[in-house]
């Protein structure tokens, strides 16, 4: 469904992404692991043009996009078909939970308010927030805010959702509620790209794991083999370190 080829990106002298290729099939749940500064977040941000790549192409179903030179119209078309969940939730602070979900539908997709609200309520119900429609973000816990953000991302029925460290800003006891919503989405067949440090999510929910370091993909494997039979020495030390921590 998504074929990304030769994506490069540097910030000044620092090469953050070095010729990365990535193929995503429909229904894939891909966990992207790696130390901080390895380029994981930048990769996601380049895919929906929050960051302009220096070069690279992306084939999205039948459409081909130049990741450096895409027009405004092409960017809009990619964003229309993708959802994005941020580490810091980034909810609209002046909108209620429900309005956060309906805003894009009404303003960007010109949906009727009543119709958008019906979808909004359904999405919030799905993430377990049926009691919180009219709460402002400041009145919600971090876990609830992130679930509103997920509801906002799924509202427009995207073909793929990108999660950028969705649980990294959360208190440990709130991580579970967000992960279980993500697990549910995965089980329903949603295509997901998840930058994460949650090893258990990578091991148990995702079907593929990508390990990045210094702007390159060190290993790309199905989850089972990644953890049980890693090909690269680097991955073996990585897994040993995690096992030691747990």
């Amino acid at each position, binding site marked *: 469904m998504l074929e990304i080829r030769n994506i490069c990106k540097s910030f000044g002298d620092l090469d953050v992404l070095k010729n990365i290729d990535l193929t995503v099939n429909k229904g894939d749940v891909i966990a992207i692991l790696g130390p901080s500064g390895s380029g994981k977040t930048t990769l996601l941000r380049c895919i*929906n043009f*929050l960051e302009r790549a220096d070069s690279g192409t992306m084939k999205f179903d039948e459409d081909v996009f130049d990741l450096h030179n895409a027009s405004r119209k092409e960017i*809009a078309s990619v*964003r*229309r078909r*993708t*959802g*994005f969940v*941020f580490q*810091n939730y*980034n*909810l*609209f*602070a*002046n*909108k209620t939970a429900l309005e956060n979900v309906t*805003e*894009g*539908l009404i*303003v*960007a*997709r010109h949906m009727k308010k009543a119709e958008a609200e019906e979808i909004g309520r359904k999405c919030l119900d799905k993430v377990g927030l049926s009691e919180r429609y009219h709460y*402002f973000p*400041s009145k919600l816990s971090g876990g609830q805010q992130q679930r509103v*953000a997920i509801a*906002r*991302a799924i*509202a*427009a029925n995207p073909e793929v959702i990108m999660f950028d460290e969705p649980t990294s800003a959360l208190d440990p006891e709130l991580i579970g509620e967000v992960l279980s919503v993500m697990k549910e989405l995965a089980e329903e067949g949603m295509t997901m790209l998840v930058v994460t440090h949650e090893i258990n999510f990578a091991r148990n929910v995702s079907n593929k794991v990508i390990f990045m370091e210094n702007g390159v993909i060190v290993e790309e494997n199905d989850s089972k083999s990644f953890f049980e039979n890693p090909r690269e020495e680097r991955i073996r030390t990585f897994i040993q370190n995690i096992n030691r921590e747990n």
Partner: protein
Amino acid sequence: MSDRIITILVNSFGSLLLAGLKMTIPLAVISFSIGLVIALFTALVQTANIPVLRKLARFYVWIIRGTPMMVQLFVVYFGLPSIGILLSSFVSAVLVFSISVGAYCSETVRAAIESVPHGQIEAGYCVGMNYWQIMYRIVIPQALRTAFPPLSNSLIGLVKDTSLAYSISIVEIMATAQRIATRTYDYFLLYIEAAFVYLIFCTFLQWLQRYLERKLEALR
């Protein structure tokens, strides 16, 4: 206190209050409203980084903040006629005050816009909104809320600064006090009374500000 003083105070108080209601407040409110529109526009062309307009906005803010309002008033009211532009004193005052307020408030508004976390703008893009939709629906409402206290400050400042319009023969509170004083020779009394009338108006505005801030807070 002698009966004479009391009579003067009582008789002049009505005139001063009336001058405030008929001239000072309308002058301040009209100028401030126009100034706010200018401020918003000036702030937006800077944050949106529109090439030529951004430079112009910086230039405008630089000039206005760097010159006294009194001089600006004189340039417009006494100076412009010599190049054939004749404006009434009221129009001159509104022009100068709104341009001045616009420059100062544009910095307030710009700072408030920049205080809205950038992540919300990115989130707006991700749900398909464009820059101006995000500005109008997400950023500006939050920015104005943040800017409300400093903007109230500017309004209160402007109410007092309208006394400068006295110098271009606008009959507001200050001019009214002056006129009565030249007749009765009670300068001290009349100027104190004028100060008191300004205080009444500004106290009301401060009270209004606190009331509206509480209302805004409830919306969060």
